[in-house]
């Protein structure tokens, strides 16, 4: 199935919104460039910016997603995602949810993938109770993971596509850890350690501190586990799951696939049409039965 191409103004809104949100994630890196009296406000702005952008993007995309098939698939798949995520917490934080996000994003397009990431976090957070200041950031990052899979170039050969998705999955696993650490780093470490975020330090030193922090915090542990899980998962279930998703044929939102024949389009769809007579005896007309051809 051909993926819906990302065109139109919502594509730009999604792109622009993501860029702004990326700034919200990366505030510790460029807060030093801000005027001194604005530096203290940077984390607060970031905290407000990311949820606000999330709501704005959700509102923008909501109208486009308002078709029965999209809504049903989004709902059901985010339930699967949430189940996978909650089950993962039971087995030592093996994050398998990326497998679903990547495959569904690949099958149904960037917007769908983005919203699936968002809703998966929403559903699992509500069920498990893990709401916190990090939830909007998680939603964004998971949304990007889903959307990114759709933005990979089109690959015709199934094996190559799976290979590309595996490579993407590994990259996404580490990048996810990286960006989630980036905005949270100053809060997690606090002040007074050698890897603390220092607003007045040069960028190089902050980057070095952050690199060390992220290395010991997640890159070597959680992110690696996630990358391995995602790789194994996509290799094992990828072909079959992609086939299942594509069998469902999500049409382009708002443009149902239908064959408008010249005859039917030439007629205004109205209630008071006079109709050519149903000739009795024509091919499959019900000719003799008392009903249904009560008119004949």
């Amino acid at each position, binding site marked *: 199935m051909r993926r819906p191409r990302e065109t139109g103004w919502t594509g730009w809104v999604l792109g622009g919104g993501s860029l702004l949100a990326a700034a919200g994630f990366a505030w510790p890196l460029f807060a030093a460039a801000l005027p001194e009296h604005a530096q203290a406000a940077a984390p607060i702005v970031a905290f407000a910016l990311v949820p606000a952008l999330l709501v704005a993007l959700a509102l923008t995309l909501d109208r486009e997603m308002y078709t029965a098939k999209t*809504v049903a698939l989004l709902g059901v798949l985010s339930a699967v995602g949430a189940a996978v995520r909650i089950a993962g917490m039971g087995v030592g934080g093996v994050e398998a949810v990326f497998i679903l996000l990547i495959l569904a994003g690949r099958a149904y397009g960037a917007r769908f993938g983005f919203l699936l990431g968002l809703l998966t976090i929403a559903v699992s957070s509500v069920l498990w109770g893990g709401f916190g200041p990090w939830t909007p950031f998680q939603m964004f990052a998971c949304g990007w993971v889903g959307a990114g899979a759709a933005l990979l170039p089109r690959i015709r050969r199934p094996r190559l596509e799976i290979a590309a998705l595996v490579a993407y999955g590994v990259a996404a696993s580490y990048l996810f850890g990286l960006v989630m650490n980036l905005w949270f780093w100053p809060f997690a470490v606090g002040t007074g350690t*050698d890897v603390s975020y220092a607003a007045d330090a040069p960028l190089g030193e902050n980057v070095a501190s952050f690199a060390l922090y992220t290395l010991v915090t997640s890159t070597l542990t959680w992110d690696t586990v996630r990358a391995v899980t995602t790789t194994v998962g996509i290799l094992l279930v990828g072909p079959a799951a992609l086939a299942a998703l594509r069998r469902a044929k999500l049409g382009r939102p708002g443009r149902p696939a239908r064959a408008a024949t010249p005859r039917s389009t030439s007629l205004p769809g109205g209630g008071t049409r006079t109709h050519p007579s149903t000739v009795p005896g024509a091919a499959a*007309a019900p000719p003799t039965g008392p009903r249904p051809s009560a008119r004949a």
Partner: protein
Amino acid sequence: MLRFRIAPLRAAALLAGAFVGIRVMYRVVFGGASGGGQLLVDLPRLPLGGPFSHVALFGPVTTGGLGNAALSALPFALVILTFGLLNALIDVRRLFARGADRGPLRALSRSLVIAWATFPALIESVRRVRTAGALRGERSAPALLVPVFEQTVERALCLAASMEVRGFAANRTAPAECEKPVVMTDAFLGFEGPGENEHGWHLTGLTLDLAPGTLTVIVGSTGSGKTSLLHSLSGLFQHFDDGTQHGWVVVGGVDRAATPPRETAGFVGLVSQNVRLSFVAETVRDEIGFALAVRGVAAVIVEQRVREVAERLQIEHLLARGIDALSAGEASLVAIGAALINRPILLLVDEPLADLDTPARERVVQVLERLAHEARVCVVVAEHNTREWESAADAWLEVRGARVHALGPGERPSALVSAETAQASAATAQSTEVSRTRSRATATGPAERLAGIRHLTVLHGSERAVDDVSLELWAGDLVALEGRNGAGKSSLLRAIALPSNPGSVIVAGRDVAAMRRRDRRTAVALVPENFDDLLFAVTVAEECRRADRRQRPAAGAGTAARFANLLGLGSVTEAARLMRRHPRDLSAGERLCLVMAIQLAAEPRLLLVDEPTRGLDPEARVLVAAALLRASSDTSAVLFATHDRDFARCLATRTVVMAAGLLAEPEPVRP
């Protein structure tokens, strides 16, 4: 909107605690735990080099340093706790349930409502697939994940179709002309586009005119396109399944090709084939009122209309019930109620009787007949169970090949007639086969005792689904296990195949419960009622290979060959057309044969088949009957459960009747 739940608060407290702990740990590791107070440990400081020259690890740890670290973490920990408190107090689900019918986030809110409603189904799906995996001897987890996933996607599509026909996401409503529910003029239905038309299915020259107050039954074999014809009226065929329509299909005066189903929800009602998969709400009341609620009708009016509909169908007592606590018959009535909420002029019903036992069938037929003849609704039913409709139907349409024929008075559906002759010939063929088997049995002396089931009991909660059943099976047996829905037939078969209950199952001299799971399939294999659960692969060929891989069959006796043989085809090459397809795209009869072939791969001595005729049209039943006969020559004995007495009588070498968990009749003495 407000309520109190302790779990989120507890989770938040845990997270806050972990946050404080982790910050203290960072201080210790990255040289910041010194400060006032008592010295606890004096760790050496380890400066790093390179780009990390400003970092040193460890250093002295003091109580003051630790205290400072913990204190500095408190503000953020407090934020976490606040979120937890909000989460504990605000019922987010209710918030989104309200937003699902209107408002700027209705699409996402509806998705969330569906997500929460899907959770129980997901757990059920996992349970079913695990059972299927055990039956098939399949243990790898990813192989089991795929069916769960496929079932989930299928559920999503059923849900979507059901939402669409009930007016979800409609931004306009088409006006209806009540006098002409259905007018088709020289219409063509088919699938166009790359790769879609490989089976060449189409219907052409459709011309018909259905009047209000009539009940029309569309008959035809499975795969003939009854459902597509029905959905060309609901609009799902043109607007949801990517079907192509030419000519005119006019429903209630509205051009179907130009009007999606959601815009005709006001006057077209649809009861889909699998009603449980089409339920979108969590309670019966919300389910029946859904079509009004998505239009933004005031809650009071919705409630009143729901009561009206429930009274008419006599299901008031179900209104408060959860949607998952309904019997098959009740679920059908609820689905009919949900389709009636908008007072449709056209009601489309897709195979309403497939899952029901006789009393429930009579009830549904009666309800639909009254709707047509008393409430003047134009009712169209697609069905292959024709007998039940004989007194209620006003007109019959039969799909034959690419044409639809209106049957005159006294004319009988040809599918039925041909199926009866085919069944008769199958019966003769079978009787010769049976006598041959018997003569073989007598030739080799007295029949060998193959299996002994002793005092088997299955408890469902406190109910005894199977109550101390004992049964003997001989080599060469083809035994029918008869009984009504709920008699315990399925429980008995499952207990034989997966013994974990009181009682013993001995097959060919070995205790099945004591065998390793992998080896059990060489003794006994079960084709369950929902046999689709056993299909894991994306093509039929791969499915066969997978079955062979597990079992290492003798050369030339692979699953593909057996599948072709069960279908009555001479060789695998004749079945090549089927081998490339997705297993779920096969017809129901073919799928059942495939699953039987897979289950025979381990060469079990005893094959169990649960309700092989369920949901099959007469032709498919003939196919399955022949397949059962061939299977019985492949293994030592076959035991199949059915509630279809005729099928049992014409096929089996003997019959055992089960009622309320007991074998009702003493086992007849073997001739």
